[in-house]
């Protein structure tokens, strides 16, 4: 019984690391640009599809894709910020949400037109195939890699933002962009790069997800709503908060799947309601 629960929690942690990666990207973009990136799901899907296209059409393997796909999506993201999002600065931040929502729809529609709905299968890279019997459960090696890699990426992002000069600019930009501009920092460029980085994080999660889930045009829109709920629960004020909440909710889902599988799809939203009731600003958030 406890062994089985432990297995479920471990599986929950794996999902939680996807949530953490995605909500981290959202939090970084939101922190600086004040934009809720609804296209985050689409960028995640793009990452997975670029990996698949690379492998199927060009023979580019997983390890290259793990860097190339996020880079490509990051550049695309920078173009989106530079050409579209920038025009909305100074307007109500709802417009940013609506713009990225429209983008997400358009991209999803294009991929549905191009690839159909059933999607495509991406193989687990040869170095990470197989599974290890831990006694209480069989753990596929690839899943273990997902947890490790996500944690490394999440915490190094956090370190960069909290401990480096670049991160200090970023945090200052969040507080007062005009002041930062006065100090001679190229703030518009920083906005562009930040959005690109957030998009790249989403694409990275997408490549990580490709061997686990079927690569389909709708994979992004399915996950993004849950991630939004994660972000509401955690509060978008803090980077660490986003990571910890993501992992925590994965664990919560895992526990739900064990004790009461029927509600496991909705447990995140129930948690969201409870948090709003008890701590409206979110677990780690500041009221804004």
């Amino acid at each position: 019984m406890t062994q089985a629960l432990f297995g479920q929690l471990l599986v929950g942690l794996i999902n939680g690391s996807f949530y953490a990666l995605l909500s981290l990207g959202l939090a970084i973009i939101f922190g600086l640009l004040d934009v809720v990136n609804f296209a985050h799901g689409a960028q995640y899907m793009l990452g997975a599809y670029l990996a698949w296209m690379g492998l199927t059409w060009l023979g580019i393997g997983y390890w290259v894709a793990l860097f190339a796909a996020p880079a490509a999506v990051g550049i695309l993201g920078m173009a989106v910020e530079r050409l579209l999002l920038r025009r909305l600065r100074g307007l109500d931040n709802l417009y940013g949400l609506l713009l990225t929502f429209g983008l997400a729809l358009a991209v999803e529609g294009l991929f549905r037109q191009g690839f159909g709905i059933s999607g495509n299968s991406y193989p687990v890279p040869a170095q990470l195939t197989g599974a290890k019997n831990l006694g209480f459960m069989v753990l596929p090696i690839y899943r273990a890699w997902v947890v490790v890699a996500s944690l490394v990426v999440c915490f190094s992002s956090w370190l960069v933002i909290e401990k480096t000069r670049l991160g200090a600019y970023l945090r200052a930009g969040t507080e007062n962009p005009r002041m930062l501009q006065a100090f001679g920092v190229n703030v518009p460029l920083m906005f562009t790069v930040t959005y690109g980085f957030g998009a790249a994080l989403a694409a990275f999660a997408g490549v990580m997800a490709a061997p686990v889930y079927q690569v389909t045009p709708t994979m992004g829109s399915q996950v993004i709503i849950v991630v939004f709920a994660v972000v509401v629960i955690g509060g978008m004020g803090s980077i660490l908060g986003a990571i910890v909440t993501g992992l925590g909710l994965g664990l919560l889902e895992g526990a739900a799947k064990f004790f009461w599988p029927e509600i496991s799809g909705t447990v995140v939203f129930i948690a969201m309601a409870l948090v709003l009731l008890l701590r409206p600003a979110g677990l780690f958030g500041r009221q804004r």
Partner: protein
Amino acid sequence: MNRIHLSKLSLALLAALPLAGQAAGVSDGVVKVGVLTDMTGAYSDLAGPGSVAAAQMAAEDFGGKVLGKPIVVISADHQNKPDVASNVARRWFDEEQVDVVADLVSSSTALAVMPVAAAKKRITLLSGPGSDPITGDRCTPYNVHYTYDTYSMAHGTGSAVVQQGGKSWFFITADYVFGRTLEEDTASVVRAAGGKVLGAVRAPFPTADFSSYLLQAQSSGAQIVGLANAGADTVNSIKQAHEFGLTPKQSLAGLLVFISDIHSLGLEAAQGLYLTTAFYWDRDDESRKWSQRFYARTKKMPTMVHAGVYSEVMHYLQAVKAAGTDDADAVMKKMRETPVNDFFAKNARIGPDGLLRHDMYLARVKAPKDSKKPWDYYQILKTIPPDQAFPPLSASKCPLVKK
């Protein structure tokens, strides 16, 4: 209004044509088949554009004309939205003289269009949907349910797999009516055939990550893990079962799997899966011949839904010809009287509930090394005769069935 329209037209035809007596049978100078399907959504690969192509093939193979009048195939995308489906159907019936609606994949759209068609005396030929109420309490006299229903999937796979030695079962069930019906039906068949059900877990629908349910299935130790789900859920659960090393120690039984799913999964992940199908392209010479033509046109091998659409449209056109009219009552009567005999079904008949009872096949997905050519995916293990595959009329909930 239709009547007036009809008589006016036939008067006009009487004046214009020497052979008017025969031609008056076609109401408006054209026999129009409307393929209403999901062109881009969740079912677009198993039905969608392939269904449209299949209907066009049928019209062409029939010679493009019936009773001297052209056969026209039109299509629309219902986007899986029942309101869109019923709106399009109404427009088709009233403004575009559509005589028959084919495919109607997804049960919500089918159930929404069936009463509209019945009220206007037009025929619906369903190939894509599988829900039991279609030929149960929501049946109509102008509907034919052609390819499969949930009962046939559950009963076919359940009993045949137990006979093959798969005695102990565990279910991973999509937690909604469809999934629960599949699970309950299959479980009762498994028990009746002498098998055991060790447990079941209900996964919310839709789910992307099945790992925790697979772990529960794994620890149950059941020989067979029944997947009472469909579409993306099935694909993800099969893929992850492979990843977690569930297979080949335990075998999966998919309760609603199409060849398009297997194609997107790949044989490496799908091998060893049991499934029931109404059609497999490589089953015999006739099916191969038709499927190669379908492939030449669409670059995909047909799913059972595609084959069903071709066969049902063909059966309809033959009935129009035999009845000498496109009047729905007369055509339905002919379609019921005449057994279907083609590459899709042999000696199959449409019951008063609208269900076509035909052979189903238990198949097993091949291992990659056994697959000799593209799309060589299934090994057919067993033919399931109609009386075992489909529900008996005596148990029908359809009010049209006289008991």
